C-alpha cells in the first residue's frame, strides 16, 4: 500500500539531482561515448571490455588501459541481429551483447574478457573469437576449488597469463608488480566507498533508493576508478544532505540478478510498490571482492587470495560447505530484512535452478519471499508491480505492531 505514490527523486537537492543526472546519462550511453572521449583525451590509450563479474579489473588498469564493464543492452538496444545467433530459449544478455558488438558500439574496445559465469557466456567467448578475429579475446576461467595450493595456484597462473597478455596488448614497460599494487590500492578504495554507500542504504533506505545506488554503481563500468570513487563520495554527501520522507515500505533483499541485470525501471517499480531494497546482488562485479586485497608482497597472489576468500556467493560459484540457502538467511537477519525478492533472468539455468533450494530454506526460516523472472529488455511492469505490491502489502498488513 502506498498512500504516497510520488515517483522520481522526491526530496532530491540540486546537488543530488546533478549526480543522478550524470549517472543516468552514463547508464543510457550504449554507444560508449564517454569511453571514446576518455580515449581521445589520452592519445588513443587502449580499452578492454569485460562482462562484469569475477574479472580482476586491477590487471587492466595496471596495464595502463581503461577497463570497461559491458552490461548488456539495458533494454535500450533493439535486438535485430542478436536474435539471429541465439534461440528463443536463451537468456537476453548474450544477444544484446553481440548486438552491441555487431552494430559497432563496441568498436572502441581493443579486447574483451569473458569471465566464467555459465555455459552461455562461455560459448559467447568463442563466438567473439570467430566474429572479431582481430581483437584480444579471452575466456577467463575461475577455479571452483578454493584450496590455495590447488585452485589458488591455478588461478594465480591464470592471472599471470592474463596480465602478461594485457601488458603486451598495451605495450607498457612500467614495473609490473608495482603498478599492479597501486591499482589494487585504487580499487580497494573504490570498494570501500561503495561499501559505505550500501551500508547507508541498508540503514536509511529512504535516503538512498536502490534506483539511485544502482545507477551510481553502474557508472563504475565506464569511469576510471578514481573518478568513480569521487562520484560515489559526491553522491553520499549529497544524499546525506537531502531530506527525504520515510515511507511505509517493507525491507527486502533482492537476489538472483548477478548476471543479466534487471531493467532499472524494474528496481524503481519494486520501490514504488512498497519495497525498500536493503541488499541486492545487482552490479555485483563492482563490489567484488568484498574485502581489501593486500597491497603487500606478490600482487597476483594477493588477488588470487582475494578471490578465494572474499568472493560474494552467486549461483555460478560452487559452495563447498552447505548450500546457498543458509548464507541468504544470514544476510536477511543481518540486514533486518522482512522478506526476499527472488528475481532471476528468464532462461538463466544457474539462477533458476537454485530458486527451489532458496525457497525451501527461506520457508524453513520463516522468511517471506516472492519470486519472478525478468529480462533486461522487459517493458511492462504491471505484473511485477502487482506481485511486489502484494508482497509488500502482506508484510505490512500482518506484521503485528
Amino acid at each position, binding site marked *: 500500500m502506498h498512500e504516497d505514490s510520488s515517483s522520481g527523486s522526491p526530496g532530491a537537492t540540486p546537488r543530488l539531482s546533478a549526480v543522478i543526472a550524470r549517472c543516468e546519462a552514463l547508464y543510457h550511453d550504449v554507444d560508449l561515448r564517454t569511453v571514446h572521449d576518455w580515449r581521445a583525451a589520452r592519445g588513443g590509450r587502449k580499452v578492454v571490455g569485460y562482462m562484469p563479474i569475477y574479472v580482476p579489473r586491477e590487471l587492466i588498469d595496471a596495464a595502463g588501459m581503461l577497463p570497461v564493464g559491458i552490461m548488456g543492452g539495458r533494454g535500450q538496444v533493439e535486438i535485430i541481429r542478436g536474435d539471429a545467433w541465439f534461440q528463443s530459449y536463451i537468456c537476453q544478455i548474450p544477444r544484446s551483447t553481440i548486438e552491441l558488438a555487431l552494430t559497432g558500439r563496441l568498436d572502441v574496445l581493443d579486447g574483451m574478457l569473458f569471465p566464467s559465469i555459465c555455459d552461455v557466456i562461455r560459448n559467447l567467448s568463442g563466438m567473439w573469437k570467430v566474429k572479431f578475429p582481430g581483437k584480444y579475446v579471452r575466456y577467463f576461467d575461475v577455479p571452483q576449488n578454493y584450496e590455495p595450493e590447488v585452485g589458488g595456484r591455478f588461478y594465480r597462473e591464470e592471472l599471470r597469463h592474463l596480465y602478461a597478455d594485457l601488458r603486451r596488448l598495451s605495450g607498457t614497460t612500467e614495473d609490473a608488480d608495482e603498478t599492479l599494487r597501486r591499482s589494487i590500492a585504487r580499487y580497494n578504495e573504490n570498494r570501500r566507498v561503495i561499501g559505505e554507500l550500501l551500508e547507508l542504504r541498508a540503514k536509511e533506505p529512504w535516503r538512498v533508493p536502490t534506483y539511485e545506488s544502482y545507477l551510481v554503481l553502474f557508472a563504475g563500468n565506464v569511469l576510471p576508478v578514481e573518478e568513480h570513487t569521487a562520484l560515489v563520495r559526491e553522491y553520499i554527501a549529497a544524499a546525506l544532505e537531502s531530506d527525504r520522507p520515510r515511507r511505509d515500505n517493507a525491507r527486502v533483499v533482492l537476489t538472483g540478478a548477478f548476471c543479466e541485470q534487471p531493467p532499472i525501471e524494474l528496481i524503481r517499480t519494486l520501490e514504488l*510498490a512498497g519495497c525498500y531494497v536493503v541488499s541486492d546482488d545487482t552490479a555485483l562485479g563492482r563490489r567484488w571482492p568484498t574485502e581489501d586485497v593486500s597491497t603487500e608482497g606478490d600482487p597476483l597472489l594477493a588477488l588470487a587470495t582475494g578471490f578465494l576468500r572474499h568472493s560474494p556467493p552467486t549461483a555460478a560459484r560452487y559452495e563447498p560447505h552447505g548450500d546457498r540457502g543458509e548464507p541468504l538467511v544470514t544476510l536477511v537477519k543481518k540486514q533486518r530484512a522482512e522478506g526476499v525478492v527472488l528475481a532471476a533472468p528468464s532462461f538463466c539455468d544457474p539462477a533458476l535452478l537454485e530458486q527451489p533450494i532458496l525457497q525451501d530454506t527461506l520457508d524453513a526460516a520463516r522468511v517471506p519471499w516472492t519470486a519472478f523472472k525478468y529480462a533486461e529488455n522487459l517493458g511492462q511492469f504491471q505484473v511485477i508491480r502487482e*506481485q511486489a505490491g502484494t508482497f509488500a502489502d502482506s508484510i505490512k*498488513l500482518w506484521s503485528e505492531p
Partner: protein
Amino acid sequence: MGNVVSVGIDVGSSTVKVAVVESPAGSGRERVGARVLSRVVERTRRRDQNQIVQSTWADAMERAGVSKRDLVYVATTGEGETVEGATGHFYGMTAHARGALFLDPAVRAALDVGSLHARAIRFDERAKVLDYRMTSQCASGTGQFLENIARYLGVTLDEVGRLSLEGTSAEKVSGICAVLAETDVINMVSRGVTTQNILKGIHESMAGGFAKLLRNARAEGVVLVTGGLSADAGLTGALREALGKPPKKKGPSKPGQAEAVETALPLEIRPHPEGVFAGAIGAALWGAYRAERLAAGESAPHASV
C-alpha cells in the same frame, strides 16, 4: 461505537468496479459484521477511464445513500493507483484475497480471471496471501480471449456460459492465440462443430490452464472464482471437471510411478454471484482497517503512511 463506511474502487483494463462497505468501528482486521451497501460495475468500452471511475463511484455512493464526506477511506486496487480522491492503494491480490474471504469464509484460495490476466491466489484464514501464480504476457485463455471468441461466434457474453454447458462433445483446442482464434473458430464452424461444443472446448482448455495455476500455487480446499469470469458458468463447470478428475489409474499403479504424481488435489470450485466485486470489496475492507490504524496515530514504520 457505530459503523464506518469505506469504499473500494477496482479499476480493471476492461471494467471498473466499486463497492461501498459498512463495518463496525473498531472491528480491526477481521471486520466482523461488515456488509456491502452498494456495488456497481461498468465496462470501459474504449471510453475515458478516469471519467468512468468518477461516475461509477458517484453512482455507487448514490445507491448506498452515503456521501463522500462520510467515507473514512477510499481504497483503490487494480490499475487504480492514480484515482483522484483516493486515500490509498492496495494491490490486486491483497484485495482479492480479502474480498473472496468476505464473500465466502470457507475459501482458502481465489482464482481471479479478468480481461487480460488470470491468477491463482492462496491465502490463510486471515486473508494473508501465501502463494500465487499468474498467467504470462499472452492473452490466450483470458477474458478478452473469450470475448473475442464470443464475438467471432456471434453470441453475447451472457450467453456463453449457458451455451457451453449445453455442449455435448467438446471440440479440443489448445493454446490458440486470442487474435488468430478467429480463423480457428471459423474453421471449426465450417467443419460443422456447434457453437456449444466450440465453447465447451475453449472452456476446457482455459480450465486446464487455470487448474495448473491453482495446483502450482498449492491451493487446497475451497476455491472462489472471482473477477469478470466468475459469472461464466461454463468456465466454472469446466474447472470442476479439470480439478475433480479422479487420479489416473492404469492397472495396479506401482508406487513411484509417474501417474502417482498426477493425482488431483481435492479442490472445490465455488462461483459467487458477486465474485466480480471481490477486489473492490476487499479493498474497501482493508481501507477501513487502515483508517483505524491511522486514526490510532501509529507512526512506526509498519503503520505509518
